[in-house]
């Protein structure tokens, strides 16, 4: 069925199709439509929606529902995302799979509630305290808001990690006619087998998708935000602290091969634009215009996953580039990552816009 949907709606529908049955959130522009949609639709499928007293409560409530066995999600924007950071750290530490959607607006502070930005790229990566990697996906279209939300649920279940869906206001509010698939492929987490004496909540054989129990299943599990042993109980033994942090890192780093998912075309081109989110839409238009006018080929490398940052993959793909352009709606957050980790012997140009307006194709053409 073809339908006219906004990115926020498509994201909410994706969550429902992926089996999300719990939403806890606090209203904030420009993410609110996700909550409104789920408030209406979740109860129809036996799910639960709750509007919490703030974003701190929202993420903790979501963590609770996840621990009790539901696929759960929250949605917010900049300031709310900041409030959630400690709770995101908890999801990472306790290995609770969940989805946090951040429909980005500008900051700092209350910033620009009704304008667009891509300024939370680094907050998504480094927002909470402590050493750990994170997974963040970044859709550029309404259809992809659906697809990447489903993908986010699958990744979170498979690796037992929180997954962040970073949308910018333009993508969240934009409307497109889309045809959504009736069926989506879902990751099926295995359930542990009794007896509970043999059960460890955190497996030490690097089996990140080992079966896990939830509250109420008779395994008498203990979840804590403290550094814990494989049975979940806290410890401050140096060896186990290190094992714990290595585990959190390795489960993402070791799985980069299937996490990597880039869209690209014309990689033989001398000028390649590395882009994401709505800035990639302008980049695509810029490419077409330049190609039409000059006959010069322009490469596009669009990232669907921002974190873990696919630096090795980029090095390979950008081998023949003579010039790399990174357009984004912030002061160069991903540009610095490209320059730093890809370390090409070619100029990397940052195209920035951070006045709340969309980055235009003309601005990118000027840099080409």
């Amino acid at each position: 069925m073809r339908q006219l949907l906004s990115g926020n709606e498509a994201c909410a529908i994706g969550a429902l199709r992926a089996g999300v049955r719990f939403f806890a959130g606090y209203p904030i522009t420009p993410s609110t439509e996700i909550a409104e949609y789920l408030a209406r639709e979740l109860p129809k499928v036996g799910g639960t929606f709750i509007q919490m007293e703030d974003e701190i409560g929202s993420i903790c409530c979501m963590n609770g529902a996840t621990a009790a066995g539901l696929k759960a999600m929250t949605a917010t924007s900049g300031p709310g995302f900041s409030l959630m950071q400690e709770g995101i750290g908890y999801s990472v530490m306790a290995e609770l799979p969940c989805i946090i959607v951040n429909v980005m607006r500008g900051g700092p502070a209350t910033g620009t509630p009704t304008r667009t930005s891509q300024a939370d790229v680094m907050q998504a990566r480094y927002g909470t305290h402590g050493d750990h990697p994170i997974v963040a996906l970044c859709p550029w279209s309404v259809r992809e808001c659906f697809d990447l939300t489903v993908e986010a649920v699958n990744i979170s279940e498979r690796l037992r990690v929180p997954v962040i869906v970073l949308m910018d206001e333009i993508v969240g509010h934009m409307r497109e006619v889309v045809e959504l698939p009736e069926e989506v492929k879902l990751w099926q987490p295995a359930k542990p087998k009794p007896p509970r004496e043999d059960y460890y909540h955190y497996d030490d054989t690097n089996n990140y998708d080992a079966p896990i129990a939830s509250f109420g299943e008779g395994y008498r599990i203990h979840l804590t935000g403290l550094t814990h042993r494989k049975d979940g109980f806290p410890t401050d033994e140096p060896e186990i602290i290190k094992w714990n942090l290595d585990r959190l890192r390795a489960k993402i780093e070791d799985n980069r091969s299937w996490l990597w998912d880039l869209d690209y075309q014309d990689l033989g081109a001398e000028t390649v634009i590395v882009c994401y989110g709505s800035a990639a839409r302008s980049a695509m238009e810029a490419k077409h215009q330049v190609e039409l006018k000059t006959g010069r080929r322009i490469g596009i490398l669009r990232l669907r996953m921002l974190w873990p940052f696919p630096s090795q993959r980029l090095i390979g793909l950008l081998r023949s580039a003579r010039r790399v352009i990174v357009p984004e709606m912030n002061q160069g957050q991903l540009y610095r990552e490209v320059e730093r980790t890809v370390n090409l012997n070619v100029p990397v140009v940052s195209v920035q816009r951070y006045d709340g307006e969309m980055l235009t194709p003309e601005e990118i053409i000027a840099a080409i």
Partner: protein
Amino acid sequence: MIDITADRFLNFFRLDERFPHILCPGCGIGTIMGTMVRAFIDLGISQDELCVISGIGCSSRVPGYLDCDTFHTLHGRALPAATGVKLAKPELKVVVIGGDGDIMAIGGNHFIHTARRNLDITVIVVNNFTYGMTGGQYSPTTPTHEKASTAPFGNVERSFDVCFIAKAAGAMFVARSTTFHVAHLKKMIELALNKKGFSVVEVISQCPTFYGRYQGIGDAVKMLEWLKSRSVDVSRVADPWQVRDKFVIGVLHDQEEVPPYTELYQSVRERAKE
């Protein structure tokens, strides 16, 4: 009445892997933990249908010692976490335990809103008038003028009455007891567990390491004597909300049950499907 054998009591703890515990000698939290477990056993609450949830603090270490599903969450966030668990699995008995700092300071907003929503949860607030785990700083329940590590010249803030706030926010059941009155405490916890809806038991507890020392009350034994001499039963006062110089113990508020959140939300699901 079910006979509590020592075995059943001991079986409720994660004895092999978790003891000795980290609490100071003479701390009241151990008494509360033991009393809670006796209440669970007497009420026939099975270890497999119980989830005990806490935030961060000495009091919040209790779940780690109990052999049931346990959830040690972030500082102040036990109640939203408990909300998520209860909404996801309404059939679980959900009990929250935490300190006056955890539940009333950093978690104060969650406390009033969880009460307002009437989640079917029992909250045990361990009130030792101080932040034990971080070293005796003043808390929202520390009386004015008293000393604390962050109030060396006396606390200038006015203090909260946990029970009063619980009642005002909409709790179905509110009671207070102390670690001296162990049988009374057990009764209060049982009544709270049996009440459908949001129920609160405030337990005045001794922290000899900090509060007892800062106020010059003395060691654990002196503190228990102090608890005894400072307490008065609710039946012996005209208005429990007006008493300032004593701990009024007993059932302070017990209202006719109204449907808890999970039941109301079930009716939302039915309406949504129509």
